[in-house]
């Protein structure tokens, strides 16, 4: 039951900068436990992050880590992975970073089915810049840039990444920590584009403006609105209302990008002989 996380955490960089009750610390901790569970080589693991609250995770994780520009982490990770396919490349992004400014890279990374593990910490808000609405802020909710209520519609990120070609798609919550660890470990070991949406809570810049002022209230909300995928299909349309499925939502064996490129190299070099 105990996970060895000390080796994977830059202890001297803690406490981290995230606010009291922020779900990002919990998700990062359980990503590290997932890494421990999957037993991937930490010396061959690279963590790439973008900009925003989620972007800061890379600095606390004891691997080769790269804190990049806003939205582009998957593009940087693509170069890292293709240049050296031996590496386990993990991308940490957020709902603003990954679905707004970086949305194009998300769908194209999925389309290539390149072997990255993308963890999208979805706290439904731009937290770092103090509460502007993101593509994942629920319609009708309040944000500093939606003072009269948000009229934007959201993505269903599982549908989006599935349509784009991802071969492993999962969703978890900061609330259900044991499920998160399982999902992360399975996603890390999957060969191909693994997309994991981790629902996080931002009590300070989202909850406070939307009737959920404490992390505990927000976690209870995650508990009450999430349904394990194993039970999801048995729910009626009415029962599904306001709820979302969690767990491994989709998985398929599919040809991976860097392996396909290596086949090109092998055949071209064979021909040149």
């Amino acid at each position, binding site marked *: 039951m105990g996970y060895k996380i000390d080796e994977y955490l830059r202890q001297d960089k803690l406490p981290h900068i995230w606010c*009291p009750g922020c*779900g990002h*610390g919990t998700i990062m901790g359980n990503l590290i436990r997932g890494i421990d569970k999957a037993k991937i080589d930490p010396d061959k693991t690279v963590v790439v992050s973008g900009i925003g609250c989620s972007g800061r995770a890379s600095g606390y994780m004891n691997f080769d880590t790269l804190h990049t520009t806003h939205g582009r982490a998957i593009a940087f990770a693509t170069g890292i992975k293709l240049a050296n396919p031996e590496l386990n490349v993990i991308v940490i992004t957020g709902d603003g970073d990954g679905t707004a400014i970086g949305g194009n890279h998300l769908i194209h990374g999925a389309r290539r089915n390149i072997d990255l593990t993308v963890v999208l910490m979805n706290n439904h808000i731009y937290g770092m810049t103090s509460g502007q609405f993101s593509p994942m802020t629920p319609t009708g909710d309040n944000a500093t840039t939606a003072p009269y209520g948000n009229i934007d519609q959201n993505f269903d990120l599982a549908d989006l990444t599935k349509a784009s070609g991802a071969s492993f798609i999962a969703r978890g919550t900061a609330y259900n920590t044991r499920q998160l660890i399982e999902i992360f470990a399975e996603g890390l070991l999957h060969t191909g584009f693994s997309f994991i949406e981790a629902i996080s809570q931002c009590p300070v810049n989202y909850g406070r403006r939307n009737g959920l002022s404490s992390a*505990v209230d927000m976690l209870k909300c995650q508990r009450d609105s999430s349904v394990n995928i194993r039970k999801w299909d048995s729910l009626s349309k009415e029962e599904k209302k306001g709820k979302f499925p969690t767990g491994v939502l989709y998985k398929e064996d599919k040809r991976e990008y860097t392996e396909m490129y290596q086949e090109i190299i092998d055949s071209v070099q064979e021909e040149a002989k």
Partner: protein
Amino acid sequence: MSKKGKVKITHPERCKGCEICVMYCPTDILVVKKGQITITDIDNCVGCYNCELSCPDFVLEVVENNER
């Protein structure tokens, strides 16, 4: 026979008093006092790991043979 682990506050300086661990604790032995987490009755700790896995700030650990 290995003793069951019990919670230990390994990094009190990191605690931000969010009370997430308090919500998870099945035996209600965790209490935030003056913004800091405290353990009221370690004997009642069942070593479930809920607090360790949920703490966003890496404050708590379940330690086997915890000598407090």
